[in-house]
């Protein structure tokens, strides 16, 4: 079973997201939440990082997007928006969770 990586820090402020992408294996998933959600938004200077990750499924936590005033239309195509329940399901479905804090 594959791993679920989680990132909750802004990609502009910390290297958590960049480092996560350098360690994530094909077939794994990355969930962005709290300030990590900014990595999932369109038109940013770091947008290319997410887009160039091959064979990795990205998820972003909807409530954190909403809190920060960012609509679903701002999310990069292909990134799936999930709620808290789905977050828990994802954690359960994967063999383990690797948190990039």
């Amino acid at each position, binding site marked *: 079973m594959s791993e679920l990586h989680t990132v909750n820090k*802004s990609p502009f402020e910390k290297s958590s997201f960049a480092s996560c992408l350098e360690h994530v294996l094909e077939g794994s998933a990355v969930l962005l939440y709290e300030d990590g959600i900014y990595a999932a938004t369109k038109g940013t*200077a770091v*947008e290319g990082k997410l887009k160039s990750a091959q064979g990795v499924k990205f998820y972003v936590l909807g*409530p954190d997007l909403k809190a920060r*005033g960012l609509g679903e239309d701002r999310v990069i195509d292909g990134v799936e928006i999930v709620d808290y329940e789905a977050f828990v399901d994802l954690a359960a479905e994967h063999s383990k969770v690797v948190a990039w804090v």
Partner: protein
Amino acid sequence: MSEAIKKFLYLNRRAPYGTIYAWESLEVVLIGAAFDQDVSLAFLDDGVYQIVKGQDTAAIEMKNFSPTYAALGDYDVTKLYVEKESLEERGLTIDDLMDLKWEDEDEDWAEKDSIKVVSRFELARIMEGQDVVFSF
């Protein structure tokens, strides 16, 4: 004789909610505004996210403090500098920000824009012209 008025600049560099910095800064600004100084705020780096419009924190069960920025004008804090490059790096434009205004009592409460988008270089110059700079 009143003391000489000093120029205070508050640097806001963090996104809201993920950490406490944004709200702490806002509280300090509101408290400090009682001291009749020349106060301005700068939003740069992730700080520009603090004033993005349409914030709704109901689902994350935290206080949505974004409406409080609209009260700054009442506290005579009328200069909010937003760094252009920081917006651009985040795929944002001024239209994504709250329309923050202040009312000029001397001009029959005419509404004026509080936000001014400035370049990185201009912001550096603004910092240079301050007596005190607080970082959050």
